[in-house]
């Protein structure tokens, strides 16, 4: 990994961190907006009730349920934000494929153009790779974004992973209708893939991302303090 790539990855990492935080804050704003309007509606009904209008119990129940659901959604979002924030704790470590995929699907789900993605159950024992958890998260997130943009919003994505070879893990993103992926990976995504020694294979109905089980070069570079 040369200095040019390390610099690009550093800059991209910061941009990625910022953009994910922006999408999380957007999600939280939506949640607060729903709670605010529902609470306001309850207040309006209370005022009307004082003026003699009958309060419907079912309406109150719906409002109460809606507020509870949004609070739970808010907690979920904050849990994901927390999990994402901790992805920079260790420069390299054993990183769970299942956890990385699950978080990437949830985080991309906040984007307006995100479609539905279904993660197939992996092997009984979780597969891990020794890599940079943050950069791996970045790569999976960017891959999902590219796929969502290429697919129709109504199409669904199925994600599976396998360990065909002891030295590498393959993530398979399958779709019914192939979108326009001719420009994928874009130069920025390619730089992240390069840093992780990951490769992409685009097939008619699937995009495959292969990542090495161990990335000694990355570990050495990060140990020298060359990346975040």
């Amino acid at each position, binding site marked *: 990994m040369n200095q040019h790539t390390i610099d690009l990855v550093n800059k991209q990492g910061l941009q990625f961190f910022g953009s994910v935080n*922006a999408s999380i804050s*957007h999600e939280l*704003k*939506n949640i*607060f*907006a*729903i709670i*605010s*309007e*529902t609470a*306001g*509606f309850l207040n*309006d*009904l209370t005022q*009307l009730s004082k003026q003699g209008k009958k309060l419907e119990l079912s309406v109150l129940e719906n409002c109460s349920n*809606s507020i509870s*659901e*949004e609070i739970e959604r808010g907690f979920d979002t904050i849990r994901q934000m927390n999990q994402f924030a901790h992805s920079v704790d260790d420069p390299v470590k054993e990183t769970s494929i299942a956890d990385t995929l699950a978080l990437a699907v949830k985080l991309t789900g906040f984007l*307006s*153009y*995100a479609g539905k993605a279904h993660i197939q159950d992996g092997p009984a024992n979780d597969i891990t790779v020794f890599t940079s958890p943050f950069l791996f998260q970045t790569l999976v997130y960017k891959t999902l974004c590219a796929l969502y943009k290429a697919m129709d*919003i109504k199409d669904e994505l199925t994600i599976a992973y396998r360990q065909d070879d002891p030295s590498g893990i393959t993530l398979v993103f399958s779709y019914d209708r192939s979108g326009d992926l001719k420009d994928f990976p874009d130069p920025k995504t390619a730089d992240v893939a390069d840093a992780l020694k990951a490769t992409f294979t685009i097939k008619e109905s699937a995009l495959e991302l292969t990542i090495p089980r161990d990335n000694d070069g990355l570990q050495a570079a990060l140990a020298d303090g060359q990346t975040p």
Partner: protein
Amino acid sequence: MTDTEKIHLLLVDDEEKFLNALTDRLKLKFFDITPVTNGEDAIDVTGKAKFDVAVVDLQMPGIDGVQLLKALKKSHRFLEIIILSGHATIDVAVECTKLGAFKVLEKPCGFDKLVETIKEAYESRLKKKFENDAQRMQKIQSLAFGQSPLGILRELSKMDDNKK
């Protein structure tokens, strides 16, 4: 406000629960609300019914707020459009204003502020429509002199673009 004076309001937001909560509250303020969850449905309903004001979310899948603003302004020039944005930056506000948005509000905005802005947008629509009608009337009066009946009809059809 009576039924006939109700402001016909189109609400467009892909966040369905927000849309429902806002619809419930605005109904108590005597607005006539049509809520839709995407730009395609918004274009569809504006082709079938008359609206005074539209409140449009900026970030939506498919046709987004900016695209919808352009489309609605093109087909319904007197419809006032308020944009709700989760990221109401200056750039977004400038772009939407250039495209004819009445106002860009940051989401969540206070309910009272939203109601006040909707009423201002409605007043603006009435004013623009009145001015347009007055100009039209003036033109018809001037046409009445020196034009054949067929010529007057031709000129009138040119003037009748979209009354919505």
